[in-house]
């Protein structure tokens, strides 16, 4: 892997103002609206307060937006002309994949840093430092599942518009993933099977320790249920990306 190439690729993505708006600014604004400025923000949870809960949710949402976009555009970029340019260099598929994973993970750090910084200077509170660190690291690491989602979308539809649409779908998936507002009843039962639910649940675990606040009372998610959701969707997206990649190369 070339550090120079990776650094320029990170820089190029950081400069894409419209993307960075959805990756970092929007989650920070949503956090201020739904976390900082609400009456319930200082209500306490097992590992912190509600403001911290919203903060981690939004950071995780920003992180998956970043990885979806990077991985999706990586696929489109490679299938289109730039891939032919790279094919003439010593950089192979493995090198390209390593580079893009590094770029995606680096950019996933941005919303976490931005939203957590806003939280730190407002009213987000967690009981211990390790809870801050762990939830931040989990948000970044688990967003890699959505790199597979973006990759599959890019490989199947082969256009930047499709990658944009896949990123747009994250709003819906985020809603069903219990990211934006607490779901209840039947909707929550369905939500537990949707792809964002596990990731955001795990990232919030240091704050919630598994408790789920609903309109009709407190429920609990076991860490195993959240892990099972995450792994299952990682496998689904991974398989889709693998199949699409095989089909894409077979056409040559």
């Amino acid at each position, binding site marked *: 892997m070339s550090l120079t190439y990776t650094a320029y690729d990170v820089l190029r993505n950081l400069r894409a103002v419209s993307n960075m708006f959805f990756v970092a600014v929007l989650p920070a604004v949503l956090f201020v609206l739904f976390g900082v400025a609400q009456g319930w923000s200082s209500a306490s949870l097992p590992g912190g307060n509600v403001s911290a809960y919203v903060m981690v949710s939004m950071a995780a949402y920003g992180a998956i937006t970043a990885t979806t976009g990077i991985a999706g555009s990586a696929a489109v970029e490679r299938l289109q002309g730039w891939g032919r*340019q790279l094919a003439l260099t010593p950089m192979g598929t493995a090198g390209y994949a390593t580079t893009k994973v590094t770029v995606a993970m680096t950019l996933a750090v941005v919303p976490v840093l931005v939203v957590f910084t806003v939280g730190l200077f407002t009213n987000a509170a967690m009981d211990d430092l390790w809870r801050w660190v762990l939830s931040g690291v989990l948000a970044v690491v688990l967003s890699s599942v959505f790199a597979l989602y973006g990759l599959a979308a890019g490989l199947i539809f082969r256009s930047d518009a499709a990658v944009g649409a896949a990123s747009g779908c994250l709003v819906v998936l985020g809603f069903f993933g219990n990211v934006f507002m607490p779901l209840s009843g039947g909707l929550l039962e369905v939500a537990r099977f949707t792809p964002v639910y596990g990731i955001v649940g795990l990232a919030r675990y240091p704050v919630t320790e598994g408790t789920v606040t609903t309109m009709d009372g407190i429920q609990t998610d076991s860490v195993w249920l959240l892990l099972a959701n995450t792994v299952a969707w990682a496998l689904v997206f991974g398989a889709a990306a693998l199949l699409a990649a095989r089909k894409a190369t077979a056409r040559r």
Partner: protein
Amino acid sequence: MNRTNTATTPAPRPSANPAIEVRDVVKTFHTRSETVHAVKGVSLEIPRGAVVALLGPNGAGKTTLLDMVLGMTDPTAGTVAVCGEPPRSATSHGRVGAVQQVGGLLPDVTVREAVTMIASLYPDPLPVAEALERSGAAEFAGRKIFKCSGGQQQRVRFALALLPRPELLVLDEPTAGMDVASRTAFWEALRAQTADGLTVVFATHYLQEAEQMADRVVLMDAGRITFDGSVHELRSTSRHHTVSFAWPSDEPVPALPGASKVTRAHGRVSVRTQDADAVARAVLTGTAASELEVSRGGLDEAFAALLRHDDTA
């Protein structure tokens, strides 16, 4: 980490091998509805230092052939060797630079950034500033790619092609869509590179480019090589001559033996013929014509005739 010499010791460069060696190559594509025979048995050897033009109409198989040379696609049958190596290993050893017809550039980086990014992937690249200078891209190096004109983007691709210090340069219609001035400038920049023994193969639709740049012309048509020789030899495949002479514009043109086409303009009559001697003799002895000129058919005619597999063009 990409500059450590121990990890990426350049493989020995056996200059005895020809730059390109294509043997009995066939390439067949299968689409859902049909089977396309893009290349139907091509053998070609290009020695080091040659400058070769690849001519042919759209769909002749030029790009497919070049794609196999670049290792972008594998032949259905036959073998391709580039500088004595399989194409993909030749490209990853930095022996080959290419300006491809469909070579997207990242739109949202500057020219210098694009060149720096690609340079960082090679173990021992040409310095970025030098690549920019040699390709003529230095003057707009700070511009974002999407703001560059088509001609400028070709300069960028040319700069990228120079980065590995290649032994072979492959250009697939590098000047397509450029205006005359950009085309001239592009070939001047390329000519400067060929001075130090670089092998160049370029596909083009412009016969003039072939004539000015290449010392050898390979003509492809319908997946086969139909001509392989010098520009002079290509020209001489045309048996057509044009006989022209001054003629008063109010008088009818006399009937001439062996004339295949007669046109008149600006007080002159032009006669296309396969027997220039007979036409010239008849004009000079039997008419009041003056200022007679005889010229051999152009490259265009030779080209057109070869493509039609006949000589009635």
